[in-house]
């Protein structure tokens, strides 16, 4: 049986291993080269490093860490803002009936059809006229505004799957609406909130164009913009070791985050995608 299974799988294994290897080789190369001296990158291009050049990481850390900190501050605040607003909104849209509810919901729905490219320029002008350029708020407020749209839908469909009887019996026991929200809905939705938050976090982490136009002071650069600046400086002087160390440092926080949360994330993507 084992042998038969192996015989069946073998051609699959061969093709998949080749595909997986090519897919992730650039990152393996990045990781290996980050431990080489610049000399060694030239002379021993494809090989393993002869000794671990940890100084690359010290050099790169000095350059990259302020950008990393900016991104962490902005994405954490944004994620909390998005989670708070979208869970309250979703709760209201599922639990209450009030005049204009459908219109308001349609207004939010319509945003899914408006591409970011259309609003980029006028949104920049708004932020400029509000005198928010070169502040964290220039990033956080628009990120929350746009970031809450998808979560409102996902959470609304999840909240409406919670049985109504649960709320009714809580009401009989004297629970207020706030308690229903905080003590029933939120605890039951932990994993979906987690997924939604993580998706948002990842989106903000990867934003490039928006900070590029609204933040011009290097001390406020997020990691994406900072890495491009860092790249042009280090690649210009062919300092490949520290450059790849910098790339690796920029990747580490998300890698660690995923190590702990990948299961939820994948479950969330696949179930959310089916509903959409």
């Amino acid at each position, binding site marked *: 049986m084992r042998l038969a*299974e192996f015989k*069946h*799988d073998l051609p*699959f294994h061969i*093709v*998949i291993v080749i*595909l*997986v290897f*090519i*897919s*992730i080789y*650039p*990152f393996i*190369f990045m990781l290996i080269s980050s431990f080489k001296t610049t000399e060694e*990158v030239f002379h021993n291009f494809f090989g393993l490093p002869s000794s671990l050049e940890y100084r690359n990481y010290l050099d790169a850390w000095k350059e990259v860490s302020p950008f990393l900190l900016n991104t962490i501050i902005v994405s954490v605040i944004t994620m909390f803002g998005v989670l708070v*607003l979208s869970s*309250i*909104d979703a709760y*209201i849209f599922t639990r209450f009936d*009030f*005049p204009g509810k459908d219109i*308001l919901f349609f*207004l*939010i729905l319509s945003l899914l059809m*408006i*591409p970011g*490219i*259309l*609003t*980029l*320029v*006028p*949104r920049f*002008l*708004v932020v400029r006229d509000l005198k928010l350029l070169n502040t964290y708020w220039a990033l956080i*407020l*628009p990120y*929350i*505004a*746009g970031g809450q749209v998808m979560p*409102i839908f996902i959470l609304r469909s999840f909240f409406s799957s919670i049985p109504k009887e649960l709320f009714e019996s809580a009401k009989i026991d004297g629970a207020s609406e706030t308690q229903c929200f905080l003590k029933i809905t939120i605890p039951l939705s932990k994993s979906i909130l987690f997924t939604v938050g993580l998706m948002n976090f990842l989106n903000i982490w990867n934003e490039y*164009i928006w900070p590029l*136009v609204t933040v011009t002071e290097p001390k406020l650069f997020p*990691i*994406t913009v900072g*890495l*491009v600046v860092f790249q042009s400086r280090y690649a210009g002087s062919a300092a*490949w070791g520290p450059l790849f160390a910098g*790339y690796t440092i*920029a*990747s580490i926080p*998300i*890698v660690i985050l*995923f190590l702990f949360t*990948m299961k939820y994330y994948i479950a969330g*993507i*696949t179930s959310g*995608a*089916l509903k*959409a």
Partner: protein
Amino acid sequence: MGNKEIISPGGTMKKLFREIIKNRNCYLLLLPTFILLFVFEYYPALSAVYYSFFEWDGFTPPRYVGLENFIQLIFKDTVMAISAKNITILTLFRVIIAITVPLFAAELIFGIFNTKMAYIYRTLLVIPMVVPSMVNLLVWKFVYNPQYGLLNQFLKAIGLSNLCRAWLGDFSTALYAILFLGFPWISSLWFLIFLAGLQNISTDIFDAAKIDGVTGLKRIRFIDIPLILGQIKLILILSTINALQGYVGIMVLTNGGPGNSTMVPGLYLYNNAFYFNKMGYACSIGMILFSILLVLTYINLKYIRSSEEG
């Protein structure tokens, strides 16, 4: 009869008003969301439509020019013509890639009997998603580096050094280098969605198909694909939207060059707004892209409905 008509509108108005007062907390709690949406979404979207009919540098008063921006863009602007050609090639290529390669990978992993290995492969294929997209782009920029790049070093190592070139700086290869970026193009997200779709198909269906002798490619064609049509269409819509308005990769790798040979509408919009101070013109480009997206999405959605009914 006459009385009723006069009274009832007033009555419903009063009732509506009472309902609104009763639910005032709902509106109050929704307010922060709608303030943010108004300031950073609705107002910008509406003013994009408005400014697309103006010539404006963003500072001095805008000057109304009617359809002039659109006429210029569609019929006269040569950079826009190159951008349109490039984005057509890129979008077609990327959309076809998005629905074939990740599906192929998902089918391969779905086909393995050894579940432990399948799990390991799946985890490895998620790595590209975990690495920040900017790191991915910068690593690919290095792949194409003329002196030290991975691609040229690899060609030298296998004795094909005559093929080495500045992939991103050469007019004849820059666009192909952009297309090749991310090879073998297994998008983690699309791959996961396809794999989940396949795993959701009931095993009874596969058993029945096996008895009827429907296996291999035949099974994929007549069972798998019809049953994951929902996923295919979702990815069709999303990858079209992404491909049509995306330009970060091109900005970082070539910035539209050499010359304008890899220019795309998104980047051209960006340059017009933030380098040439032509805000109105940039909004017109945004409007054109928005209209095209609207039409394409409409076609996609229409197609979904008809084929699910049929």
